């Protein structure tokens, strides 16, 4: 991993400083970005020593967290209901199939019109993509459960509630966590876009703002910060998933070390 990162930074440096292409010359090289990032007195006002830097991170993290939590709280139950009850799927499935292909940003104007203020609108578009990913993967997870497991639990005297708790939810869990990983990625994607259109703070807002103010190193700092925050949120979900699906790792034995995520 370290080698990969070093090589890409070297390539970046080389492209900016040594290539004859004008296009690359406008970009800041890694050294000037790094100097700005750790400067106590940054040229463009944002570095790890300024409160504003953390304010932007906090705003974006807050929005992503709220959106993700809503997607989790609504998407998982909906996906389970859809996978479990055919009639429910017939109703909700059609609506979902129709809404899902609409790109999240297409919702921004409507969201601003309906919701009070920009803040809920940005959270809403972020929530929307995370919600679809969570719901659909939960649905797939329920569908993937071997029907014999449900029959076996019926034979042993389980009621519908027992089956939901002991078979359907644990059986769908691996797929739910895959969905949450995708949801988290999609949430950041659409959050940044939302912030660019309708926000006064946040990493996405600051990227566009820095471009307008010709503060190129700040763009790169914000992008790199997004990479770090996004990676951390993903790693957190992976960690919780591994803890909750211990049986899977143990059953696969030593092979599970590099479980795809």
């Amino acid at each position: 991993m370290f080698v990969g990162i070093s090589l890409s930074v070297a390539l970046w440096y080389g492209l900016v400083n040594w290539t004859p292409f004008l296009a690359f010359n406008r970009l800041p090289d890694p050294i000037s970005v790094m100097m700005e990032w750790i400067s106590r007195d940054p040229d463009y006002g944002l570095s790890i020593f300024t409160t504003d830097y953390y304010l932007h991170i906090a705003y974006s993290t807050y929005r992503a967290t709220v959106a993700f939590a809503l997607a989790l709280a609504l998407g998982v139950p909906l996906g389970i209901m859809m996978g479990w009850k055919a009639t429910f799927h017939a109703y909700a499935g059609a609506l979902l199939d129709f809404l899902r292909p609409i790109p999240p940003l297409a919702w921004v104007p409507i969201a601003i019109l309906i919701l009070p203020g920009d803040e809920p609108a940005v959270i809403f578009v972020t929530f929307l993509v995370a919600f679809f990913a969570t719901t659909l993967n939960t649905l797939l997870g329920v569908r993937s459960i071997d029907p014999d497991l449900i029959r076996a639990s019926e034979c042993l005297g389980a009621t519908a509630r027992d089956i939901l708790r002991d078979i359907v939810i644990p059986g769908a869990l691996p797929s739910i966590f895959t969905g949450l990983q995708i949801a988290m990625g999609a949430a950041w994607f659409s959050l940044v876009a939302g912030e660019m259109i309708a926000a006064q703070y946040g990493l996405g807002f600051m990227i566009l703002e820095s471009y307008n103010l010709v503060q190129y190193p700040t763009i790169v700092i914000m992008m790199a910060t997004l990479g770090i925050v996004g990676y951390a949120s993903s790693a957190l979900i992976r960690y919780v998933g591994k803890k909750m699906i211990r049986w899977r790792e143990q059953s696969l034995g030593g092979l599970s070390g590099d479980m795809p995520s």
Partner: protein
Amino acid sequence: MKPTGAVEVINLQKIYGAGDEAVHALESCSCEIPAGQFVALVGPSGCGKSTLLNMMAGFDRPTQGEIRLDGEILVSPSIQTRPNSDRVVVFQNGALFPWKTVIENIAYGPTVQRKLKPLEALDQAHAILKNVGGMERIANSFPGQISSGMQRRVEILRALINQPKILLLDEPFRAMDTVSKSGMHQHLLDIHQRFQTSVFLITHDLGEAILLADTVFVMTTRPGTIKLKIDVELPRPRNKEMTLTEEFTTLQKQAIAAVHEEARKAFERGEKELA
């Protein structure tokens, strides 16, 4: 106490679909499993064996006829008794819950039936795993960590802990190698000897059926009908060495001859139909 677990299958018919696309899975299918007996059903793949077993379990209902358990109607075209722990199925591909440990799997029945408190159920599961299975060291393993032979034994214990009237085994040894299979045969013979539970075993292996069962029914395909009943009068307790005795081989030869005769007749009938 009078032994329970007697099953009667009376004139059963099952048609899937309707019109030109209707599939006759079972037709005039009758057989019986006397209380406490071990009965095997042999037949080619896709002949309707599992359809019959599914109806006994309560997963499906017939289009005609009925199945009775100890005289009470279990399923008929208008009645479908819910699956219950008085007739537990052991599935072809195994159906242990992968997210529960061996001991939690075995304790599952008594726990969800609220017969025992969860801790008592676990105690009982430990007891049966040790005394019947002799496998106490895998108690806390997950199903994915143990061999397929052990998985099948655990699944049988998970059924037995509920003291079912009948065990329904749907080709449980199909994917096993010869050595584990023969171990499983002995295990099943011992269990049947000890618990005297009725057992209904589906298999396509005639030798296996003769070694294990008191009665072997042979089913032919499309539509599935019982064509032949073979009474196996080998003494109990049985063991796998019996497969080498003359009694066993004679019986097996007769059975194979009878099955071939049935197959030949069916084939000729088929030709006539085509002509």
